[in-house]
């Protein structure tokens, strides 16, 4: 799977000039509001005709203005999950789900209705009309409807933005399953780093209509200065780990990887399950000697892999811990006081309670492609 975009388009005074390639299963388009994310997915989905450029999915050219190619949206086979669900009000859930399937040539139908209904847990809603669904249910039906048209790519434009935290938590696992079990790549628009860190294999950061960073999620989310200003504090390292032990007595789950053990507030996964954790850079303390008499439960040994001084008071320290990088944001003053330099052995200290809900999530299943 590959998505290749290189387009430019003007809307009033706003100019979108975006070029990126993504091989990932779930590519997040990430940026503050007004950065052009929605315009970009509308262009990919065929709702907007770009002034110039080219878009291809798996080598199939959707748009090439120079060659005079512009595939209308109903011929693109791109599923679109809108922020506002957009279920057809005059059709039942079942009819909504089957709508796109009807327009799909039988030879290209790969999505099975029973499997999709099971995946999204919407079997009990089939005969209802959209006006009787909750926001979360609507969004699950909208995802199912897009999937049942057997698309070659699914676009999701902030599908959780209109929902409260409880509804978000209800839908996120379904999107994870979609990413892991459905054989269709996803482009996911979001302005929330928590969602991106949890879901994305690849990230494209948009700012003011331009791509400022693109690549695997674990690399891009460490470029704190490129993250949207309001979300910068949420940035940090993504670590792939497995559940090693459930300490029910202390309500703690022990995660393990080559980096060592990390204890997080209890996370309901079976031993051996893969998880992905986000360690916010601002939550990491750097110590040159192994600290003692400390309440923090996680003290991970590593070596300084990179030192980047920012424009303000801070500096970002990359610490290599058994092959995975933990990022620490400390002050420039601490950097000089400790005399940190690349190659120096250090300890990263992380409080267990700094892992808030949403920073620990089920890891990617299946083969990695990102």
């Amino acid at each position: 799977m590959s998505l290749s975009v290189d387009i430019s388009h003007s809307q009033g005074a706003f100019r979108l000039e975006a070029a990126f390639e993504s091989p990932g299963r779930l590519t997040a388009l990430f940026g503050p509001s007004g950065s052009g994310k929605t315009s970009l997915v509308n262009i990919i989905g065929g709702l907007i005709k770009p002034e110039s450029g080219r878009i291809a999915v798996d080598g199939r050219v959707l748009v090439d203005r120079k060659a005079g190619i512009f595939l209308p949206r109903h011929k693109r086979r791109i599923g679109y999950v809108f922020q506002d669900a957009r279920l057809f009000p005059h059709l039942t859930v079942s009819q909504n789900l089957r709508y796109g399937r009807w327009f799909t040539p039988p030879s290209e139908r790969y999505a099975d209705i029973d499997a999709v209904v099971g995946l999204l847990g919407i079997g009990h809603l089939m005969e209802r009309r959209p006006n009787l669904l909750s926001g979360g249910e609507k969004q699950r039906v909208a995802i199912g409807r897009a999937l049942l048209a057997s698309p070659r790519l699914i676009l999701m434009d902030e599908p959780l933005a209109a929902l409260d935290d409880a509804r978000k938590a209800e839908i996120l696992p379904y999107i994870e399953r979609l990413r892991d079990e459905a054989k269709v790549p996803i482009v996911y628009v979001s302005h929330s780093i928590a969602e991106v860190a949890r879901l994305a294999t690849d990230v494209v950061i948009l700012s003011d209509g331009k791509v400022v960073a693109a690549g695997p999620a674990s690399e891009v989310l460490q470029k704190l200065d490129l993250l949207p200003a309001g979300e910068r504090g949420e940035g940090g390292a993504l670590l792939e780990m497995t559940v090693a032990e459930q300490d029910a007595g202390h309500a703690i789950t022990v995660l393990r990887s080559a980096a060592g053990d990390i204890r997080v507030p209890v996370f309901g996964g079976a031993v051996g399950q893969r998880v992905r954790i986000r360690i916010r850079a601002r939550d990491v303390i750097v110590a040159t000697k192994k600290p003692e008499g400390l309440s923090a439960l996680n003290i991970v040994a590593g070596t300084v892999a990179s030192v980047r001084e920012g424009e303000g008071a801070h500096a970002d320290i990359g610490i290599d811990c058994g092959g995975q990088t933990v990022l620490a944001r400390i002050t420039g003053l601490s950097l000089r006081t400790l005399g940190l330099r690349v190659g120096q052995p250090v300890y990263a200290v992380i409080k267990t309670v700094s892992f808030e809900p949403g920073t620990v999530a089920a890891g990617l299943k299946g083969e990695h492609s990102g």
Partner: protein
Amino acid sequence: MEWLALSPEEWTAVRLSIKVALWAMIGSLPLGIVVALLLARGNFWGKSVLNGLVHMSLILPPVVTGYLLLLSFGRRGPIGAFLDTHFGIVFSFRWTGAALACAVMGFPLLVRAIRLSIESVDRRLEAAAGTLGASPLWTFATITLPLILPGILAGMILCFAKAMGEFGATITFVSNIPGETQTLPSAIYTFTQVPGGDTGALRLTLVSIAIAMAALVASEVLARRLGRRMDIE
């Protein structure tokens, strides 16, 4: 209550009126939907001219509309002569002419109701249908049309009611021939012109009221049923 019983001639006028109104309503529906679509969605030169033309019969005195129909669709009128020689369709002094006159008079009401409902359709739903593989024509048939159905029904009822009451244009265009072009209003008018016609006029007036009320109630019931089915939030 003997006086309430309709005479055979009066029954003819009632039946003819319903026939004329139904044909006026159904005959103008396809064009009405197309024109409503053009006015609601189109962006073309002459849109305001089209809008003016559609609403002309609402503003002009009905007699003027009837006379214009006579000039153009009469036997010797350019359109009337053409239709007569090539298709054998004759409007003047026939019930078909009455239906045409009623259709022209009801057309603005029909178009207006449909246009308003088209304008209230959430176009983002149509975009969603497009991403699911529906071509513009399929999108119209499966999304837009069902969503504007209440508006179409409302327009049809309005058009039917207008046609049932049409008098000026009809009598000018196709005259007042019992059994051929004498609709309810024409028959009532005739009764009022002859001595002793009062009871006849009253009988037909009651019939008119009954039909109008029935049409109104039917449209209310249909609209409520459709509304309950969709309940667009």
